[in-house]
């Protein structure tokens, strides 16, 4: 029963011991192991020799990460960083990270996201990075406050923000033109989208082209946004209570059901067989709600036919959910000095600029986002930054994955119309509340 615990504490002790030895050997002046976090961080000697593994989940971002590593190696030529990509599709990345955490073999630096930060921080899996802040290696004022708050758990700062994303309305100009429907603007409402979508679906009937759809196999780029736009919530701000049974949330879910029922959107089955983003890039979808990280692939597929405007306004607002990743270090880091040096570099303006220029994601470092906006000149990418201003924080609790799974199990029935939306939402709320009650 407690052999795990003994083994872990033994290992961390051993790791701390090893760190002391290695730091002493290279004349480092910061304390080792867990206490390194509290003491102000000082940059290690430039000839520090180490091997770091860096776990990420997006293969599309690997080239940018490699560029950043090359820049980092100009400062620390002897720190070898190996980038390890595990796809997040089907949650393979998190299954792997969790297994590695249980066996004390976490990568030296890895990507963290909103749904998982509390789980890892509260279970003492991560090294607090307050030392980086007090050592002036990282300035939290450089990043959007919502992201710094997301990665601050119980007063300790655990992750240096890497990027952020919001959702907007993507559309295909060519499909609108052919059907003779006027293009969307940033002032559109839900009704505008519905009526334009209906015209488009009718015009293209029999050709397999649809007016509007979103990715209903997850909430971030679809129903989370509409639920908030209708005045609902996914989870209460303290993360203790489900918001699915509120009238606003039900209206936000009903929006997607109505689109499917009226034939504006492909059916739930169609969206399971072919992802809405794939339908959009293969010109089978005139409009879709999607995240800022899909701009690159969409632009590659559609070229100048791609248009992007702000989210259509719902009954209450046109808010998007904001989410962002951070770079974290495990609590029992094998080489804390090298890992901290690398994470500090990942948080710099230079690293953010490299990310911005590749156009893959919006860098979190304030002021560098403009380079990202310029990365695809044919589209008005600034809408994503506008949406970020009053965006709603990404819904998360300690064990977010547990109720995400409930959403995936129950909501398809509501969208497909096999059960009334309100019934499913209430059922989901009560099951989610039971899952949340188990967290504490």
């Amino acid at each position, binding site marked *: 029963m407690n052999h*795990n*615990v003994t083994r872990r504490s033994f290992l961390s002790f051993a790791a701390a011991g090893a760190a002391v030895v290695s730091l002493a050997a290279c004349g480092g002046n910061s304390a080792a192991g867990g206490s390194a976090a509290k003491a102000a961080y000082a940059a290690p000697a430039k000839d520090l020799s180490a091997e770091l593994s860096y776990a990420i989940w997006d293969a599309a971002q690997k080239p940018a990460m490699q560029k950043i590593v090359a820049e980092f190696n100009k400062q620390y030529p002897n720190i070898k960083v190996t980038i390890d990509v595990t796809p997040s599709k*089907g949650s393979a990345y998190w299954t792997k990270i969790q297994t590695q955490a249980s066996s004390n073999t976490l990568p030296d630096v890895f990507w963290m996201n909103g749904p998982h930060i509390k789980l890892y921080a509260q279970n003492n899996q991560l090294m607090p990075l307050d030392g980086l802040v007090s050592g002036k290696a990282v300035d939290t004022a450089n990043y959007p406050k919502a992201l710094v708050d997301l990665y601050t758990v119980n007063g300790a700062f655990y992750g240096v923000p890497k990027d952020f994303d919001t959702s907007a309305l993507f559309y295909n100009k060519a499909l609108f033109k052919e059907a003779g429907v006027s293009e969307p603007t940033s002032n559109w409402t839900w009704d505008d989208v519905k009526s334009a979508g209906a015209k488009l679906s009718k015009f293209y009937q029999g050709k397999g082209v649809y007016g509007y759809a979103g990715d209903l*196999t*997850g909430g971030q780029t679809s129903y989370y946004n509409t639920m908030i736009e209708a005045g609902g919530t996914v989870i209460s701000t303290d993360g203790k209570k489900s918001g699915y049974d509120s009238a606003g949330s039900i209206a936000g879910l009903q929006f997607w059901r109505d689109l499917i029922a009226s034939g504006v959107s492909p059916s739930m089955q169609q969206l*399971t067989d*072919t992802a809405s983003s794939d339908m959009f890039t293969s010109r089978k979808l005139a409009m879709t709600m999607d995240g800022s990280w899909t701009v690159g692939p969409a632009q590659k597929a559609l070229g100048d036919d791609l248009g992007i405007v702000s989210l259509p306004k719902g009954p209450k607002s046109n808010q998007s959910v904001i989410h962002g990743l951070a770079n974290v270090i495990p609590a029992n880091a094998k080489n804390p000095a090298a890992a901290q040096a690398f994470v500090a570099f990942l948080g710099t303006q230079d690293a953010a600029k490299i990310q911005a220029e590749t156009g893959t994601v919006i860098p979190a470092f304030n002021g560098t986002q403009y380079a990202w906006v310029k990365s695809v000149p044919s589209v008005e990418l600034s809408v994503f930054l506008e949406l970020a201003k009053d965006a709603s924080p990404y819904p998360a609790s300690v064990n977010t994955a*547990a109720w995400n799974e409930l959403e995936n199990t129950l909501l398809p029935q509501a969208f497909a119309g096999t059960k009334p939306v309100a019934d499913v939402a209430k059922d989901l709320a009560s099951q989610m509340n039971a899952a949340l009650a188990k967290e504490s």
Partner: protein
Amino acid sequence: MKAQTLTPASKSGRAAQAAGDRRRGKSKSDGWWPWLFVVPTVAGIGVFYLWPIVQTFYYSFTKWGVFGGTKFIGLDNYVRMFADSTIPQSIVNTLIYTVVVLLGIPIAVILASLIERPGLRFATLYRTLYFIPYITMPAAVGIVWRLIYNGDFGPINWFLGLFRIQGPYWTSTPGFALLAVATVGLWMSLGFNLIIISAGLREIPRELFEAAEMDGASRVRQFFSITVPLLTPSIFFVTIVTVISGFQLFDLLYVMMGKANLAMPQTQSLVYIFYNQAFLQNDKGYAAAIGILILVIIALLTAFQFRVQKRWVNYV
């Protein structure tokens, strides 16, 4: 996952039996040193298979935190399991899947006897072709079949469309999804079954067929009166392995269905629920209890088959 454990084990069991047969008559004791040769295998099985089973059994009585740290909670996980309404449905799903995959055995017997006909050209090529799906990663197979089954753009529905038939969304419609996954499972298992049964076929003495031919027995009569009865040991072995791997259905399902699939409740297997609880809901203690349930069901089914085999398996 455990299929791999049992397959080589049972195969080596067969090999050992065969070796024993050859040496029958020698009564001299070999001493202790032969044991030395089995130590690596026994140690491997002990450390990687038997010890985890013991551990899983223990963990099924605990509440297991996300990152380790367990608490003994007695029978709570089992009480919860018997009240869980998704479990009976998933047992039914798993049984349907297993039955469909078992249909692959008669197909493999027919194919094997066609391929093993004396003088058939390219026999090795056919065997290789049938065996390729078995050695391909289930994840890769699943991704390809997911595309083949695609409701709007898949070749199956395109083909049906030629006859003005509107095919269903195979992997996302309740009812069709399980059969779609099981058909792929059947197709994948064909190669393995074929190889085992081909080997069984070659052990049947040719003289029996020659004698039958002399007596004027037709090909069909020979097949049912000589081939099938003498193949029963191979068929029995293949049946055992198929049932075990059928109850371990996970990877195909996971890859072919994707998340948020409407058909999941009518399709998910026991191992899928195990995965869901262990790695998505972070409830590993409960998942361990489901693992034990799967172990018990497989053990019972296998024991039952060994009991019944006396009635239909002919050992010459």
